């Protein structure tokens, strides 16, 4: 049955070459931790991707219950924590995963840096990586407000005031971030929109470029 369905697809869309291309793609020896454990540093990018997938999955699950409005946000998260089966697990993975992703991304960057893997011809992939790091930090900044508790409120208060100290346009940047002079309902909903729609879309695109460039250029050679 499954076989017949596969053949149906393959006859029409020739999927076998695509799958072969992935399955036959060899990990070069110098990047293979089963040959030398020290090659594990090459896994840090993949681990970051795995953590990101975890964040996306748990994030979508949180969005099933979370309500991005000042009178509701805190209570909706209390409900996730106390009323929903596995709520604390899902939120816990999202909460700790957010910090873990920053750690694995920075370690991945250090690997690339010390191997000199950012050098010509891979300079654009380094740039893509930097943009990814900034987008993920944006996820951290916008996500942190969502619980709408004291820590969230004051952290965003301080964070947006930091933007306000930029010369000349600082006050304007702060107002754009807050959606007005004060922190309130408008701030919460726009942070939410950035957190679950805008930034994930940007991160998805950047990841696609990141991986396509790696497939084209291969992993950089041994030291």
């Amino acid at each position: 049955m499954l076989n017949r369905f596969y053949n149906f697809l393959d006859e029409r869309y020739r999927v076998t070459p695509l799958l072969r291309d992935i399955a036959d793609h060899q990990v070069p020896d110098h990047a293979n931790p089963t040959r030398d454990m020290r090659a594990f540093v090459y896994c840090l990018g993949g681990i970051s991707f795995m953590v990101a997938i975890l964040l996306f999955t748990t994030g979508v699950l949180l969005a099933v219950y979370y309500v991005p409005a000042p009178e509701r946000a805190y209570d909706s998260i209390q409900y996730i924590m106390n009323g929903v089966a596995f709520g604390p697990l899902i939120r816990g993975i999202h909460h700790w995963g957010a910090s873990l992703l920053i750690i694995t991304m920075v370690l991945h960057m250090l690997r690339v840096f010390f191997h000199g893997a950012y050098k010509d011809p891979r300079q654009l992939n380094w740039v893509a990586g930097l943009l990814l790091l900034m987008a993920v930090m944006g996820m951290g900044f916008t996500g942190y407000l969502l619980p709408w508790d004291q820590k969230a409120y004051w952290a965003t208060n301080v964070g947006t005031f930091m933007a306000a100290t930029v010369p000349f346009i600082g006050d304007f940047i702060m107002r754009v971030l807050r959606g007005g002079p004060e922190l309130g309902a408008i701030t919460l909903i726009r942070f939410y929109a950035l957190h679950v729609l805008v930034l994930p879309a940007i991160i998805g695109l950047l990841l696609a470029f990141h991986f396509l460039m790696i497939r084209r250029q291969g992993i950089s050679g041994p030291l």
Partner: protein
Amino acid sequence: MANTIAHTTPSSTPKGAIGRRQFMAYGTGVIGAVIASIVGIPIINYFISPALGHSQATAKSEWKEMGVISQFPVGVPTKVEYSEIQKTGWEVAEARKTVWVVNQGNGQVTAYNPRCTHLGCAVYHDEKANTLNSPCHGGVFRVSDGKVLAGPPPRALDTLPVKVENGHISVIYKDFRVGTTEKIEL
């Protein structure tokens, strides 16, 4: 086949002049830019418009009664809280306002905006040291004049206009920019 490539200029065009193909290419670029702005300007304005409006805090420059001077202990700050209806975007909610009032003794009164001048955390009274402290990055202010005693704040606590009439203290609440050495009203 060569002339199907967009950027080859037919040889009949004099050197340096813009040929038909080049003209069409520029034209397409211009039309593209126009379409991009027609789409882009509303999107950008939609996103930033709440930032362009002015502060909607109500009763901004009105005297607000804080209490009778004899109720305020001398030399220590007293936290006065009141609430007022404030509109942010569509949200109309009660906003809590805090003012720190210091009775200086000789009939003089000083009132501070509660925002730490570093990055805006609300200061609290450290009763042991009798200072006003920021909970965020260690800013410490002197009670008598708001001077910075420790930490990163770039200027003293912001004083508010105060008047004492028949023993009644009134204050005008104002907010100021944080993180700057000068006191700039918002």
